[in-house]
């Protein structure tokens, strides 16, 4: 499948920012926008259904995420978001 988003310009920088991907599964309607248009190919659709019967995304390659926020902004269901990766040692409720 061709990639539909151009690579962010800063992709080869040394300090690549990293993101924590959060998915609110029950909001997801399985449109695949996030997975499809992710410039870093981080996401893939799960084979599981949520309660409404949709396949939702899951993180396929977490370490490739550069916190570009594209999945967050393109998601029509406010179902996915990315937070800058927490520093080591910091504790989060939900981490990818």
């Amino acid at each position, binding site marked *: 499948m061709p990639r539909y988003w151009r690579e962010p310009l800063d992709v080869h920088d040394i300090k690549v920012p990293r993101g924590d991907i959060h998915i609110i599964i029950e909001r997801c*309607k399985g449109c695949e926008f996030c997975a499809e248009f992710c410039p870093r190919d981080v996401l893939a659709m799960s084979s599981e*259904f949520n*309660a*409404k*019967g949709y396949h939702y995304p899951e993180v396929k390659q977490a370490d490739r995420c550069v916190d570009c926020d594209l999945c967050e902004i393109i998601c029509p269901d406010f179902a996915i978001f990315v937070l800058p990766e927490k520093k080591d040692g910091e504790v989060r409720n939900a981490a990818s």
Partner: protein
Amino acid sequence: MPRKEIRITGYGGQGVILTGYIFGKAAAIFGGLHSTMTQSFGPEARGSACASALVVDDNVIAYPYMRDTDILIALSREGYEKYADELSENGILVYDADLVTPHQSDTVQAYGIQAARLAEELGNRIVQNIVVVGFTTAVTGIIDREAVAKAVESSVPGSTIELNLKAFATGYEEGQKLLAPVG
């Protein structure tokens, strides 16, 4: 046949209305019965919970709405949760087993089928409901198989008749396999 009431529920886009239509037409046009199909959905055109209701009777139907659900066909969890309580004692539940997990109940006969999955296997998820139609026809016996098949054939676009009849057959066979109640 004495009055029978059937509820079909799911979300918009699953063909909930068409399912009711097909059973209704099978009864009223091909089955020599009376039937009234009614529908309810939110103001939202699509995507949200929707349901259709079918009353089938030997006699003219005055009151066209549900009183006791004899058969509940649940294609989504939301729909199931909403209507499960209405199912009468000895009622029959038909559900998509991937999407709905029925509560335990002693008085209900429950028949599950992985209809969405089967439909996807048949090549198009859109025939999920027709799989369920076949399955329901088999497990409930409420309307003659021939009549229902005719109704399917005459209710779907010409180019999809074949696929739909295949889905119907698939569902019907699943039903026959499964004639023992699970619930």
